[in-house]
């Protein structure tokens, strides 16, 4: 199937084209409305008092000075909110694990467990005043010993984050197939490395924000979230009010990257305080707060062993991960490393693969899903390890990959971890990538740069990811243990004018889905995408939904829309057939009309069909009036995008500074709905991973103090740190949905960190450096060079 055939009757006028985005006019003119752009009559403001201690008992809280201020309406502490129905939720734990969770309340009760843990909320009339007032809330702490190193946290006698749990060990879980020890015993060469995927921040440029407005027994909450329906459900559970009394809205959302795939305590606090005061309240996260308390990602230390025969055939891959979960289990915290474990075998036919995961509490912010969520970590491990192995065997990086790729003919392919990769053509994407590399020119430039003390290297990464979350049957309560389904909904409404409104349960925040969804609908109904409006992110409109994350919104949400649209088209065809006295099966969408096959002039526009449906004077016998349909779509399988990336980097031998000179990506996300948007997702994803590989690191010192609390200390890549990207695609349709599409939002991030890391190691091999962990900052690279030269690093 191709993109063209994906539309009915071969008429793909809009799918497959780089339509300019429908979203953009409001965004480029400053007319969009993000949470902080909104106001409500009588609006109050909130500031949150947070713990400066990483681990401490709360001895006392004195709010009297703050409360005495005229501009303060309310101060709440944990003790004032003991009527909350439950602690904050963790909705997914690995199946079969016994997890002892520590109660995680919206405001700390008696003890704080990480820097930034919220202690009190101050509500007042002015945004500046509540920040002043928060400084006047006096909290006395009694410090406790702090544990930040996850491996040390597992030792006997270690300081315990939660004393009453008796251990920092949260869970142990293994996933794999075959026999890794037997596989390693068969190998001629076994390479072992410790691979660190350090802690990072999602860091969308819009921080989080909430407006809660509780009035007359009902709550309206605007939140900068990826998951408004989850926010509504969990608020109902927390506050003990019925779900239909809550409307949760994600208005314009300024990026998420997983950091807004969460149910946060601030959402509860604002709703609770609004109910108490019967006034609307706004809270906007500062960047410093975001760095402290928007959940972090990654933070896995892995001991990896990969074995191969002399000819390069990989016999086994074993990974033992210590996952630093932080102080509390949030929405998906414990399952993130598990998501990676599913694709730990990468693109390769490795018969024996096993991942053993130990989750650990430390006195840090929780980790949870950040762009890629477990899969960037896994890809980094397998792709760095295969290069290490290649070097040991004296093989080239492309050769060892080709030797082990799952061949195209084998799909659908069940891999050792038990999942069935639905489609793939790994040779195809690597071949296309290699065709873009001019190896001779590379060698020439490498030699020339060497004369100036610059070391040029090249690194590959070939990845596949598991996304399109998710088949409910597989991930649900009796499957992998998620306490919900992961279908998506769509409602397609044709107005009497022939305009179309689509309601989606997806909740995009930059992905351009209004445009991609409109393209899918337009082809199927013979209208211009201009007249297709897409409504999302509001629990008060449209059917139940599940939000945007896990590269799911096109393959699950888009498929739901395609199916709802097909139902509308079916009804339209029946109406047209009746009007024109033709057979319904002879009606097709051709251009801007529903017409009789072979007689394009003999037909009706969608507006004419809608007129007949809404003024039902001549509908087929028994047909209901109206023209709208709803679908819930639950996928049968995940989807498996894949690709091949190459990074060319220049390392300054004197300073250790790394520059990405060229980045080439060949990705396969199935037939393109909007190629321009796909490229944009890839560009951003790669840059996110370059950030992790070279610059970004959430760092706590030994006392649990956050050292990287602002954008001054936590370096996102700027325009000056990245090159123009060279992107291309192959198109292997997924058999898992009728569009053939796979996700693309996380692909770049999943593929890129290994390419950059392998390139830096390749560059430094002439200096004797053979392995490094991220982040490859100038200091670390310089130290590695000095150490390899036999000097003593400072």
């Amino acid at each position, binding site marked *: 199937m191709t993109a063209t055939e994906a539309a009915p009757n071969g008429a793909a006028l809009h799918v497959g084209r780089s339509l300019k985005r429908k979203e953009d*006019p409001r965004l480029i003119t400053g007319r969009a409305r993000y949470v902080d752009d909104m106001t409500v009559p009588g609006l109050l403001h909130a500031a949150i008092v947070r713990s400066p201690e990483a681990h401490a008992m709360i001895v006392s809280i004195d709010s009297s000075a703050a409360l005495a201020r005229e501009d303060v309406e309310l101060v709440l502490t944990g003790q004032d909110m003991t009527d909350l129905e439950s602690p904050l939720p963790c909705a997914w734990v690995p199946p079969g694990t016994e997890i002892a969770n520590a109660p995680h309340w919206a405001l700390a009760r008696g003890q704080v467990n990480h820097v930034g843990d919220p202690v009190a909320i101050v509500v007042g009339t002015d945004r500046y005043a509540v920040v002043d007032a928060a400084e006047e809330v006096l909290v006395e702490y009694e410090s406790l010993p702090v544990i930040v190193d996850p491996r040390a946290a597992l030792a006997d006698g270690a300081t315990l984050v939660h004393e009453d749990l008796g251990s920092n060990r949260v869970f142990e879980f293994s996933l794999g197939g075959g026999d890794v020890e037997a596989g390693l015993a068969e190998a001629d060469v076994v390479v072992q490395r410790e691979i660190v995927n350090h802690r990072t921040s999602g860091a969308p440029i819009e921080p989080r924000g909430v407006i809660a407005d509780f009035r007359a027994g009902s709550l309206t909450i605007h939140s900068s979230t990826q998951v408004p329906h989850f926010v509504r459900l969990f608020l109902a559970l927390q506050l003990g009010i019925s779900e239909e009394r809550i409307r949760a809205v994600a208005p314009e959302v*300024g990026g998420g990257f997983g950091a807004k795939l969460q149910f946060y305590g601030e959402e509860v606090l604002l709703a609770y305080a609004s109910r108490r005061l019967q006034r609307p309240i706004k809270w906007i996260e500062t960047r410093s707060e975001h760095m402290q308390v928007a959940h972090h990602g990654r933070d896995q230390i892995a001991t990896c062993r990969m074995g191969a025969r002399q000819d390069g055939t990989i016999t086994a891959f074993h990974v033992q991960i210590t996952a630093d979960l932080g102080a509390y289990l949030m929405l998906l915290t414990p399952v993130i490393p598990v998501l990676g474990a599913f694709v730990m075998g990468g693109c390769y036919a490795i018969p024996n693969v096993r991942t053993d995961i130990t989750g650990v509490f430390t006195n840090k912010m929780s980790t949870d899903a950040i762009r890629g969520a477990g899969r960037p970590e896994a890809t980094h491990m397998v792709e760095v390890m295969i290069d290490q192995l290649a070097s040991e065997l004296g093989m080239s990086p492309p050769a060892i990959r080709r030797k082990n790729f799952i061949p195209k003919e084998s799909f659908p392919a069940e891999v050792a971890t038990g999942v069935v990769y639905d489609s793939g053509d790994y040779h195809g994407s690597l071949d296309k990538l290699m065709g873009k590399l001019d190896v001779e020119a590379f060698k020439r430039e490498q030699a020339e740069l060497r004369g100036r003390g610059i070391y040029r290297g090249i690194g590959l990464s070939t990845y596949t990811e598991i996304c399109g979350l998710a088949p409910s049957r597989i991930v649900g309560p009796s499957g992998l243990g998620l306490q919900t389904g992961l279908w998506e909904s769509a409602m397609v409404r044709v107005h009497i004018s022939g305009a179309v409104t689509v309601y989606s349960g997806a909740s995009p925040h930059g992905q351009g889905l209004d445009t991609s969804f409109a393209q899918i609908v337009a082809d199927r109904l013979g209208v211009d995408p201009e007249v297709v409006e897409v409504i999302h992110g509001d629990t008060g409109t449209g059917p139940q939904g599940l939000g945007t994350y896990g590269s799911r919104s096109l393959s699950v949400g888009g498929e739901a829309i395609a199916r709802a649209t097909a139902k509308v088209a079916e009804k339209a065809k029946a109406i047209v057939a009746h009007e024109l006295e033709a057979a319904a099966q002879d009606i097709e969408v051709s251009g801007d009309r529903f017409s009789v096959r072979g007689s394009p002039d003999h037909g009706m526009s969608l507006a004419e069909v809608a007129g007949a449906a809404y003024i039902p004077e001549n509908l087929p016998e028994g047909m209901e009036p109206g023209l709208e349909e709803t679908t819930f779509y639950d996928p049968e399988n995940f989807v498996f995008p894949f690709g091949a990336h190459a990074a060319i980097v220049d390392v300054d031998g004197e300073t250790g500074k790394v520059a990405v000179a060229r980045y080439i990506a060949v990705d396969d996300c199935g037939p393109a709905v909007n190629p321009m948007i796909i490229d*944009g997702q890839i560009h*951003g994803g790669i*840059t996110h991973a370059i950030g992790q590989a070279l610059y970004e690191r959430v760092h706590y010192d030994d006392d649990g103090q956050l050292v990287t609390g602002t954008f*001054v200390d936590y370096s996102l890549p700027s325009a000056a740190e990245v090159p123009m990207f060279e992107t291309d695609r192959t198109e292997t349709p997924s058999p898992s949905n009728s569009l053939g599409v796979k996700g693309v939002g996380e692909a770049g991030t999943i593929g890129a960190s290994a390419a950059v890391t392998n390139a830096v190691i390749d560059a430094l091999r002439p200096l004797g450096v053979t392995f490094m962990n991220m982040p490859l900052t100038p200091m670390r690279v310089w130290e590695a060079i000095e150490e390899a030269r036999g000097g003593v690093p400072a």
Partner: protein
Amino acid sequence: MSATVPVRITVNGASHQLDVEPRRLLVHALREELGLTGTHVGCDTSSCGACTIHLDGVAVKSCTVLAVQCDGREVTTIEGLGSTDDLHPMQEAFWEHHGLQCGYCTPGMIMAGVDLLNRTSQPSESEIRHAIEGNLCRCTGYHNIVKAIQAASGQQTEATSQARDEVQA
């Protein structure tokens, strides 16, 4: 609230009399007093540039300027640059070249781009990248932002949206 100070600021061509606390940031005066919410706040350290506006014709980060410093001065915000019916060429170029995704950094990025072209009419790729170094974007990887600024300066760039379909067909 501490004592307020009267200031007169011309914003997008209209004169406004405001009474502000001396500590009030220009960005908050624009957003909250004047309702010009197109200028965004993304950090607390003048790092991200989402709040970039023009003060007397020069790009500044409005989170780093006090409203009282702007007495008698002229401010242009994204709302003053162009409207959906009458886009500024830089806005047009960002749309055409997909120079935005979530849109949050976009107003600041556009204001920084316009400022660059005011100073350098035909900037090189490197000059563009360094000129927007103080404007962070987490979505786009900057690729299409650089193309948009090149296009707005009238330089040849590879097509990004519909036009490229014809090129590739």
